[in-house]
C-alpha cells in the first residue's frame, strides 16, 4: 500500500470516528436534556420499577377469575372491532392504493393527494382519533371501530402502495404491448402479483388493530380498554389484572393465528 493510500485510509477512519463521537455526544446531550425536562434522576428509575413491581405483585396479582364472565363481552367486542376495521379498511385501502402507487396511478396529482391523505390518517395516533370522534359519535363500539378503521386505511394505503410499486413491471409492459386497457392490465398483471403482499399486510394490520382496540376503550371506544380504565378508577385491581390477562391472551392468540395463516397462504 502506498503512503498516499495509507494517509487517505487514516483520514477516512478519523472522520468516521469523529462522526461516531459527535453522534454519541449528541445522543447523550439529548438524553440529559430529556432527563432534566422530565425531572428524571437515576434513583427514580429503581424506585419506579420497584413501586411498579410491588403494585403488580401485591395489588394486581393474582387476577380475580370470578370477574371473567363479565369480561367476555368486552373481550369479544375488542376482537370484532379490530376485525371489522381490518376487513373494511383493507377493501377501502386496496381501492385507494391503486391511485397512490406510482406504477398504477393514472394521474400523479391524484397520487400525491392520496399519499398525503394516508399520511394524515396514519400519523395521528388511534387514541387521538377516538378522542376527536367521541365528541360527535358518543361512547361505545361505533367510535372504536371508526377510529381503528381510519388508522387502518392510513397504514394500509401506504403499505399496499409500496408493494404495488415493487411489482414486476415486465408483465405490465407485456400486457400493455398486447393492447390491453388500464383495467385489464390492473386485473391480469398487477393484482395476481399484489395478492400475497395484500394478504400479508392485512394480517399485520389485524395484529396492530387488536393491540389498539384494547386501548381505544380507555378514552371511550368500548371493549376491554374501558373495563381496564373503569376498574382502575374504582380500585378494582384484581379485575383489572383479569382484563389485562385477556388482552395478553387475545394479542398473543392473534399473533399465533396470523402467523399460521401467513404460512399457509404466502
Amino acid at each position: 500500500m502506498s503512503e498516499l493510500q495509507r494517509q487517505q485510509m487514516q483520514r477516512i477512519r478519523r472522520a468516521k470516528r469523529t462522526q461516531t463521537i459527535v453522534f454519541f455526544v449528541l445522543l447523550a446531550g439529548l438524553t440529559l436534556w430529556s432527563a432534566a425536562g422530565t425531572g428524571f434522576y437515576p434513583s427514580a428509575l429503581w424506585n419506579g420499577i420497584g413501586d411498579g413491581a410491588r403494585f403488580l405483585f401485591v395489588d394486581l396479582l393474582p387476577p380475580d377469575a370470578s370477574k371473567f364472565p363479565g369480561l367476555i363481552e368486552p373481550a369479544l367486542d375488542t376482537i370484532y372491532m379490530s376485525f371489522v376495521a381490518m376487513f373494511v379498511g383493507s377493501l377501502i385501502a386496496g381501492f385507494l392504493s391503486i391511485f397512490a402507487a406510482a406504477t398504477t396511478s393514472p394521474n400523479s396529482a391524484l397520487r400525491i393527494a392520496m399519499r398525503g391523505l394516508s399520511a394524515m390518517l396514519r400519523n395521528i395516533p388511534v387514541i387521538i382519533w377516538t378522542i376527536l370522534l367521541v365528541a360527535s359519535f358518543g361512547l361505545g363500539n361505533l367510535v372504536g371501530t371508526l377510529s381503528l378503521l381510519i388508522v387502518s386505511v392510513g397504514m394500509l394505503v401506504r403499505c399496499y402502495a409500496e408493494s404495488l410499486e415493487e411489482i414486476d413491471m415486465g408483465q405490465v409492459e407485456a400486457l400493455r404491448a398486447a393492447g390491453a386497457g388500464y383495467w385489464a392490465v390492473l386485473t391480469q398483471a398487477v393484482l395476481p402479483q399484489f395478492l400475497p403482499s395484500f394478504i400479508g399486510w392485512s394480517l399485520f394490520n389485524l395484529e396492530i388493530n387488536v393491540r389498539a382496540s384494547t386501548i381505544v376503550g380507555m378514552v371511550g371506544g368500548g371493549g376491554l380498554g374501558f373495563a381496564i380504565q373503569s376498574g382502575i378508577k374504582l380500585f378494582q385491581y384484581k379485575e383489572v389484572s383479569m382484563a389485562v390477562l385477556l388482552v395478553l391472551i387475545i394479542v398473543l392468540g392473534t399473533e399465533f393465528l396470523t402467523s399460521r395463516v401467513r404460512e399457509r397462504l404466502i
Partner: protein
Amino acid sequence: MNKRKLPLLLYGGAATAFFVFSLIQLNLDYGKLLEGAEKFARTASLMVPPDASQWKYVLAAAAESVQVAILGTVLAIAAAFFLAFLAAENITPHPAVAWAVRGAASLLRAIPTLIWALIFIVAVGMGPLPGVLAIMVGAVGSLVKVFAQSLEEVDGGVIEALRSTGAGWLAIVIQGVLPCALSALLAWCVMRFEGDLAESTILGAVGAGGIGFELSHAMRSYKFDQALFVGIVIFVMVFSVELVSNRLKLSMRKRA
C-alpha cells in the same frame, strides 16, 4: 380451479363470514353513524381556524412528550442491548436463559404501552415518570426480540472462527458478533424511536404527561379550535420523525 386458488378462496370466504358475524355481534347503531357524521362536520367547522393562542403550553407539552420518548427509548436500548445477548440462540450462555428472556420480553411486548402507563400511574403517581417507565418497558419487550433476531443472523463462521482461537464469550461478542450486527441494531433503534414518539404523544390522554393531555383537555372543554392546533402539532411531530427515519433507513440500506 388450481391448487393455489382453493385455500385462498376458503380463507377469503371464512374472513367474509367472520366479518358479517362480527358486524351482527357488534350491533352498531348505523343511525348514529349518519347523525355522528353530521355532528362531526359541525365540530370540524368549529375547529377551523385552529387557535394557537395557547402555543406556549402546547409546545411545552410537546417538548415533554419528546423528552419522555427519548428517555424511555434510550433506557430501553441500554437494557435491551444486554438482554439481547442472553436471548440470542447463537451466543446465549444457556438455552434456558434465552428461552426465559424471550418469554419475558414477549409478555412485556404483548401488553400495550397505554396499559403499562395506567399501571405505573397508580404505582408512582401522575407526571412524566410513569410515561418514561411505560415507554421503556414496552420498548424493551420489542427491542429484545428484534435485537436477538439480528444477532442470530450473524454468520456462524465468524463465531466459530473466534471460538477456535480460544476467545472467551465476551471477546466473541465484542470482536465478532457486535461489529456484524451493529448497523441492523441501529436501524431497529431508529424504528423504535419512531414508534415510541407516537406512543408518547398519547400517554397524556390517561394522565402520564405530555401533549396528549392538552388534546383531551381541549376536547373536554369544547375548545375545538385549540384541539385542532394540538392535533396539528401531534401530526407534525409524528410525521417529521417518520420522514427523518425513512431517510436514515434509506442511507443505512445503501451503506449495508
